[in-house]
């Protein structure tokens, strides 16, 4: 079963990469293939995120909330109910809300409109508790349905271009008692903290290695972390104040990272130390 899944993942990727063919992409192709080989090795014994994703699939189909409805009609950008490939194309600009949304803020919109669940129930919850635990499971399910595809962010809408610029400014923004910015750790190639390698998030390959492998299961904490959770902990370690769940700075940074990573492989859910 697992073997089959891996074969599909690899076959999908090879087919996608094969279509490009120009020499300019050869280097990226090689690093993508190395990334896939590493991922394959890592999940050889299974990725515990599969269990979380299974719970998420159940929750997606379960009638919940004041409106007693499931999320099966949720539009993640590819039409109501389409999950396959959806997270590879997020964040994106949504006309119905007039906002750029990442996967988690889009799911909050669906929970509110379809199920009548107040977004505050997610925003005010603690990590992996209450509605945020539900959110993590839904995310695990949805990102599994983009595994092996390519990051494909639509940067044509002016709203996306603006979010990219705002995200870039946030990336370089130094503040707090330690004067840190994202770029303190992720603005140079080949660096590490202690023994932890740090991707250079200014480059396509580095951003793909980061953006393309989150959300992920963290072995050290035994937890599945969404991208909002990942960014939140980056800010904690930067010693800033806390970013509000789903706030615009988190969306802007996500657009900056995802757009920089555009074309790289989606290897989600990831598996981290």
């Amino acid at each position, binding site marked *: 079963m697992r073997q089959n899944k891996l074969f599909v993942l690899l076959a999908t990727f090879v087919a996608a990469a094969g279509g490009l063919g120009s020499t300019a992409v050869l280097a990226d192709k090689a690093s993508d293939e190395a990334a896939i080989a590493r991922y394959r090795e890592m999940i050889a014994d299974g990725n515990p995120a599969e269990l979380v994703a299974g719970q998420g699939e159940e929750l997606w189909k379960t009638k919940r909330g004041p409106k007693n409805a499931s999320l099966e009609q949720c539009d993640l950008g590819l039409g109501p109910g389409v999950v396959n490939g959806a997270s590879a194309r997020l964040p994106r600009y949504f006309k119905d809300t007039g906002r750029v949304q990442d996967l988690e803020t889009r799911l909050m919109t669906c929970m509110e409109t379809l199920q009548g669940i107040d977004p505050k129930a997610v925003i005010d919850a603690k990590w992996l508790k209450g509605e945020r635990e539900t959110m993590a499971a839904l995310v695990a399910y949805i990102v599994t349905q983009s595994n092996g595809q390519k990051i494909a962010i639509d940067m044509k809408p002016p709203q996306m271009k603006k979010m990219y610029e705002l995200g870039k400014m946030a990336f370089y923004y130094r503040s707090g008692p330690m004067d840190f910015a994202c770029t303190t750790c992720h603005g140079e190639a080949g660096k590490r903290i202690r023994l932890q390698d740090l991707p250079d998030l200014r480059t396509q390959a580095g951003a793909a290695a980061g953006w393309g492998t989150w959300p992920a299961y963290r072995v050290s904490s035994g937890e599945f972390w969404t991208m909002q959770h990942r960014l939140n902990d980056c800010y904690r370690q930067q010693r800033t*104040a806390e970013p509000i769940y789903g706030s615009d*700075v988190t969306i802007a940074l996500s657009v900056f990272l995802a757009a920089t990573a555009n074309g790289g492989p989606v290897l989600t859910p990831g598996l981290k130390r």
Partner: protein
Amino acid sequence: MKKISIIAALMAVSSGALASAEDIRGEFVAMMDRSFKTNGIAEKHRMYQLDFQKECSAEKDPPKKVMQAIEAAQLKTIRYPADGKYLGDWKEGEKIAISGRGLTWTDKTRFNNGGGCYNCHQLSHKEIAYGTIGPSLQDYGKVRGNSDEIVKYTWGKIYNAKAYNACSNMPRNGDAEILTEQQMKHLMAFLLDPESPVNKK
């Protein structure tokens, strides 16, 4: 013809595509203001930048003149030990170098912080789990000796690294009250004492 181009320009402006640098700066400030909240000791005012933090928040470092002005201003913040004693206990210094804790919203007090030195620097001959964001400091004292000049410079660098490199990645341990004077003395010994594993194999 003229009308059409004016309409096109207006549309572009309204959609934000032609927003000026100042407009986007204003939007950015507003976004940061509404996106963060106080959590425990990590208060919201941390998001408001000091002048030099602002100058060092672009893709490239500011012009040399600006860098020099920042360095001159930061140099004035450095306070040297009143008792003239710079060297504490290297064993205590090693513990401070190893600890990366402190000042996050999951820390209870803003005191009792680590130096986090190993996050970025190689130090002891025996510790292999070191980061590489900063230069290796292995054999720091062995290579440089402990002349008054070196001792004073090392103290200053630990106290406020921005005095020597305006946009350095290194925190201002003394100036930002991350470490106490006593903790910095211990770190000095860890770097400079001949018996410290930084200098002795």
